[in-house]
């Protein structure tokens, strides 16, 4: 199959305008006739469902949380980018576009990224109008901060709770539509399969997590906004219940999966403290505005940080990347941390940690100013570790944080299945091989408020999907297949918990397909994952039954899908014989240890097609760079 990104013609600044004119419209009176199913209520899903409801479509919104407001987006801390140039520091749509393309290491589509930068302006307007309490200057205007990978201040924030406040804005807009009767919500309902009838996405099969009932939802178009798949690695900064089942099931039904190996490792997380650990906590990137990162100059130096004099410290980011310093992008900062720890210079009990030190900033600005900027993050750190960051440097280490890869979509955010749209972190679109800080929130809201509602409308106007109900054989087949999968998990009666398998798989992925990857490591992982999966189906133990709230059953189903996904992640990483962004292959690096990209052979989107019982097939969508010609990505 030929992959057509459907990028509109013409110069970059005119593409989106042009596409909007090309879109077919549904008249207001006819919109009520169409049913749109939105799965997920994070920034992407809530904003899309609310906007589709406002337009007058009949929207059904399904999510596994107990309230739409609890989606994982709620946890985003640092901020959201927009090219407003309120700071008069030389920002513009063009510059945000260039930073994002370069930050993504030239593995994203120019057309999409340019549109993202353009739409960013309106997102801030919309959120302010909804009452999102962004930080303000004394004059009453909006405040900004800087994030990694940019030399301008374009990040808008609401203390360390930006995701929370943006999500509440979208959630409130969504509930306003629920009240108005345009949107119906189904909480505690988990999508377990996609239904494709006559070549078009027509609904889903889902399990009511309270009663265990297997339900079907019928629609004229389906929008997946189910978030990223980083929890395949077990330990990550994701919420515990974030999972890949929705996109994985859609993949198995025909949606191509793009760039699965592009996973992001965040440099500033609280290091692992023990075996029991259930998740890793992020310390926002914004801390790197004022904190300085260092390790002892000498390996094995076990003195406490206060006892190490200035000239025996290595501020390695400032040393290696003088122009960006502590604000180098995430992939670069994470690898640099790994490098110093590999040299034996890591700090803390495990030796897997580096210092993030605020002493200079506190001296310069005072503890009050620092407290105002980062107070809640400092408190969170103190609660978890028992250390006080006002007195002693934080200890941080990289952790899985975000997935740039996801279901393949064209410029209109439609997957390779007609009528299946994928938005937010669940798609692969705008971040290439590495996402810049504060750009996920921007993308989620751009997709949800401003792009998907128009694209979905145009699809409905053109495709005019015929009436269908859940007696169609495709629904029957999907329902049966789902019930059979559940039955299989319940009937093994083995001896191991789903969590124990998940932990084992996660460790394998982290070791072989984490911060650095090699042919040998990936090949060994590809040999071990199927063995582990077989063991899973022999030894899994799920107590209870399917007809009630059963957390073990939920987890087991998600872990089952991670096995297949993990294999695809490794396969993609093996196939991509270059280093770019978050994907670092040890075989491909410059003499000073920087990523060595290979534009001649790998300037493409890798889109994988599922084949039952045989290896997946790779399809390539070539990437063309006209406005931002690829350069070696240097932050020196």
């Amino acid at each position, binding site marked *: 199959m030929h992959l057509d990104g459907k990028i509109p013609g013409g110069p970059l600044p005119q593409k989106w305008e042009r596409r909007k004119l090309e879109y077919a419209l549904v008249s207001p009176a006819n919109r009520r006739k169409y049913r749109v199913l939105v799965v997920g209520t994070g920034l992407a899903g809530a*904003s899309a469902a609310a906007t589709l409801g*406002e337009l007058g479509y009949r929207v059904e919104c399904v999510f596994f*949380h*107990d*309230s*739409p*407001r*609890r989606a*994982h987006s*709620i*946890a985003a801390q640092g901020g959201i980018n927009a090219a*407003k140039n*309120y700071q008069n520091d030389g920002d513009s749509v063009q510059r945000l576009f260039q930073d994002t393309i370069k930050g993504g290491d030239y593995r994203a589509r120019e057309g999409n990224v340019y549109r993202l930068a353009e739409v960013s302006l*309106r997102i*801030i*307007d*919309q*959120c*302010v*109008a*909804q*009452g999102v*309490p962004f930080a*303000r*200057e004394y004059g*009453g*205007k*909006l405040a900004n901060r800087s994030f990694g990978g940019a030399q301008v201040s374009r990040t808008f924030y*609401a203390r360390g*709770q930006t995701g*929370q*406040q943006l999500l*509440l804005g979208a*959630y*409130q*807009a969504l*509930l*306003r539509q629920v*009240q108005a009767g345009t949107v119906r919500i189904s*909480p505690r309902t988990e999508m377990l399969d996609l239904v494709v009838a006559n070549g078009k996405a027509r609904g889903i099969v889902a399990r009511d997590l309270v009663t265990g009932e297997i339900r079907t939802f019928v629609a004229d178009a389906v929008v997946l906004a189910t978030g990223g798949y980083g929890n395949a690695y077990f330990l990550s900064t994701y*919420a*515990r219940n974030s999972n890949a089942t929705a996109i994985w099931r859609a993949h198995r039904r025909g949606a191509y999966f793009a760039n699965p190996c592009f996973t992001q490792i965040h440099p500033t997380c609280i290091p692992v403290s023990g075996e*029991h*650990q*259930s*998740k890793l*906590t992020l310390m926002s990137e914004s801390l790197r505005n004022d904190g300085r990162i260092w390790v002892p100059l000498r390996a094995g130096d076990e003195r406490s940080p206060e006892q190490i004099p200035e000239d025996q410290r290595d501020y390695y980011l400032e040393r290696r990347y003088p122009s960006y310093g502590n604000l180098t992008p995430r992939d670069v900062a994470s690898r640099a941390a790994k490098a110093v720890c590999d040299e034996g210079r890591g700090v803390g009990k495990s030796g897997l940690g580096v210092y993030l030190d605020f002493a200079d900033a506190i001296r310069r600005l005072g503890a009050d100013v620092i407290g105002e900027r980062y107070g809640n993050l400092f408190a969170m750190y103190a*609660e*978890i570790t*028992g250390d006080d960051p006002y007195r002693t440097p934080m200890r941080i280490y990289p952790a899985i944080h975000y997935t740039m890869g996801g279901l393949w979509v064209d410029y209109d955010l439609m997957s390779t299945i007609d009528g299946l749209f994928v938005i937010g972190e669940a798609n692969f679109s705008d971040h290439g091989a590495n996402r810049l800080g504060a750009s996920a929130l921007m993308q989620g809201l751009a997709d949800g408020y401003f792009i998907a*509602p128009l694209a979905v409308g145009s699809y409905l106007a053109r495709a005019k999907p015929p009436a269908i109900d859940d007696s169609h054989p495709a629904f029957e087949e999907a329902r049966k297949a789902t019930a059979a999968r559940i039955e299989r998990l319940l009937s093994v*009666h083995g*001896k191991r*918990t789903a969590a*124990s398998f998940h932990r084992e798989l996660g460790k394998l992925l982290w070791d072989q397909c984490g911060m650095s990857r090699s042919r040998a490591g990936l090949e060994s992982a590809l040999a071990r994952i199927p063995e582990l999966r077989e063991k899973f189906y022999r030894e899994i*133990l799920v*107590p209870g039954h399917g007809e*009630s*709230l059963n*957390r073990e059953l939920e987890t087991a189903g998600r872990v089952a899908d991670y096995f297949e996904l993990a294999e695809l992640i490794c396969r993609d990483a093996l196939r991509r014989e270059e280093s770019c962004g978050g994907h670092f292959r040890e075989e491909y690096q410059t003499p000073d240890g920087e990523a060595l990209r290979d534009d001649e052979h790998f300037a493409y989107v890798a889109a994988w097609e599922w084949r039952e019982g045989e290896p997946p097939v790779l399809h390539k969508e070539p990437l063309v760079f006209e406005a931002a010609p690829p350069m070696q990505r240097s932050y020196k």
Partner: protein
Amino acid sequence: MRIALEVWRQRSPEEPGRFVRYETAEASPDMSLLELLDVVNEDLVRKGEEPIAFDSDCREGICGTCGFMVNGLAHGPLKGAAACQVYLRNFRDGETLFLEPFRAKAFPLIKDLVINRSALDRIIAAGGYVSVNTGNAPEANTSTIPKDFAEEAMDAAACIACGACIAACPNASAALFTGAKITHLGKLPQGQPERGRRALRMVRAAAAEGFGHCTFAGECETACPKSIPLQVITQMNRDYLAARLRGEGRAPTRHIEPGTPKRRR
């Protein structure tokens, strides 16, 4: 360290519940209380027993999914922390902890420590928003908001809808939760046009859900993991009263065409 748990187990709303004791030897001070529950649960599963059902997601105090009573205190002994942020270093070695669900008429129990809090969504749906469709917004910096106002709005907007205030309240009142949203939007220029209507509708929705009246017992403020201050309740009462006095929310007077025959009173 050793921690014993007495956990409320109840398979369904129809069946009776009871406390069940679990002894744990694997506890360590760096472990969170929820991680201890994970450990207990893995043991139960390995024995083929049903694990303790409890809700959690972010495990960093922001999503509001977690929450139960620990020794009679909503979210446990720490001020300004949700249950997921409570680490075992805050307990004594050998201590026994009683865990039971948040109890309120408007929070029906689902299983063990899991409850249904969708009543809170319905209070927001009644009016906890600014009515602005996507695309309607003016350029963001055309409205200026004094920094203090923005900060106060943010203080109130920090609510995570966990329901602890309700569980802690002798009247099971949702005043702190409702007041927090009313205050958040009421502090901002964007929230002004609907301010009275919002207060009326949200307060009435809370009553209709079966939440009690506020008698200023003050338990909610102490239980709140986000330290939402009692002032939000004062603000709510003020907005509600002002709206009532202005006659907002009453049926609008009908316009009468000249010449229409007058009816008897």
